[in-house]
């Protein structure tokens, strides 16, 4: 549609211009001027101004207008038809590619953020799990220690009890033994005292020997 618009615009202008015939056909005249100038130079005259009936440089030549119009319209047509679509496709493709890459990057970023969050949550979970395990272990160890201590204390108490009982038994036995031996000795002594009337020195010797008898294991 717009191509047609522009083309018809161009056509209207071209027709208008062609409808106005011949503005300047100066080429032939400029030949004459060159000739005039050459003649004057050859004749060493300096009044060149008489030659300068040059055509108006502002007015365009019809052929230049026609060719200018044709050139531009052809160029526009060629560009619009054979160059612009490909160029536009390439530009659009690049824009799409860039947009895609940006989207892709955004997606990757979001994904990475999710993964990071997951990971952080997992780390936090693991940390609290570890803390829980440590606490549990600590409590278990505590309980165990208390149990062991209680057990050890009980054992110690029992051992002490048994040792005391053993000692008591030994003491009792020793006392019983002693009692019976002392009784026997007393009887023996009494027998000896009765057998002999003794003087003081003899009594003392007797007591010493008795004591040493009592002290010796064979007694």
């Amino acid at each position, binding site marked *: 549609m717009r191509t047609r618009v522009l083309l018809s615009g161009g056509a209207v*202008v071209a027709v208008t211009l062609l409808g106005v015939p011949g503005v300047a056909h100066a080429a032939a005249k400029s030949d004459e001027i060159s000739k005039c100038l050459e003649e004057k130079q050859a004749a060493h005259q300096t009044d060149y101004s008489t030659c300068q009936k040059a055509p108006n440089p502002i007015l*365009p030549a019809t052929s230049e207008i026609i*060719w200018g119009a044709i050139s*531009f319209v052809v*160029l*526009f047509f060629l560009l619009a038809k054979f160059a*612009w679509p490909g*160029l536009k496709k390439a530009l659009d*493709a690049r824009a799409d590619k860039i947009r895609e890459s940006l989207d892709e990057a955004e997606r990757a970023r979001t994904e990475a953020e999710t993964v990071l969050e997951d990971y952080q949550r997992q780390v936090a979970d693991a940390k609290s799990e570890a803390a829980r395990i440590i606490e549990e272990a600590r409590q278990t160890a505590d309980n165990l220690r208390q149990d062991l201590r209680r057990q050890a204390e009980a054992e110690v108490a029992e051992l002490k009890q048994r040792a005391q009982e053993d000692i008591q038994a030994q003491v009792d036995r020793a006392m019983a033994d002693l009692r019976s031996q002392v009784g026997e000795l007393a009887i023996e002594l009494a027998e000896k005292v009765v057998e002999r009337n003794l003087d003081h020195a003899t009594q003392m010797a007797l007591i010493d020997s008795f004591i040493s008898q009592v002290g010796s294991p064979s007694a």
Partner: protein
Amino acid sequence: MIGSLVFPPIGHLVQWKGILFKGTPFEVNKTVLIMWASVAIVFGVFRTASRRASLVPTGVQNLAEATVDFVQNGIILQTIGEEGLHFTPFLLALFSFILVGNIFEIIPLVQFPANARMAFPMFGALMVWAIYNYLGVKEHGFIGYLKHATVPPGVPKAMLPLVVLIEVVSKFLLQPFSLAVRLFANELAGHLLLVTFAVLSTTLLTAHTAFLKPITVLPAVMLIALTGFELLVAVLQAFIFTILTGVYIAAATSHEH
């Protein structure tokens, strides 16, 4: 001596002898050859770029895409806006054709800008005029467009006849005229400047008086500087012509003043 300075008549600097079809309305001269060359160069660049289009642009594709980008972002989006992007091929052709035609001013051996002749500027301006008026009528209807184009809102009733007269003259006569003359006059003036300093340099260098020869440096330096300046003018005038086209189209089709 300075007296031997021969400056050719301006007509000789811009009017060229026919080469083909002499004497017919299809006469081909240097100006026409430059126009043909412009068509070939512009189409060649964009066609090559579109055929070898790759995702990562290089060489001629870069040039073509930079030009497209300039026309779209620097001209269309600044004037018409998003809805004007379908004018890209037209404005691209317009900008490139004028630019290449202008640049021939500083191409050695050619050294003539096609737009120093009134031919294309006139055709281009009339074409733009026809297009923006057509688009305006299409957008607003005939009466609606006349009102849109010539009656600015908020003008006191007493002032209206004067304002409308000014608007009519400006929109329908002066705009195309100034559009054409701006391009043509700039290119013609640039061409005349370069010719002036070239003629001066040549005259001084070939002068019979020896002490004049070193002075050649002055116009020669000026000539080099102006050649660079003309490149700037070539780009600038192509840009101005195209952006004004955008501005006129935008003004004709807009719905707010």
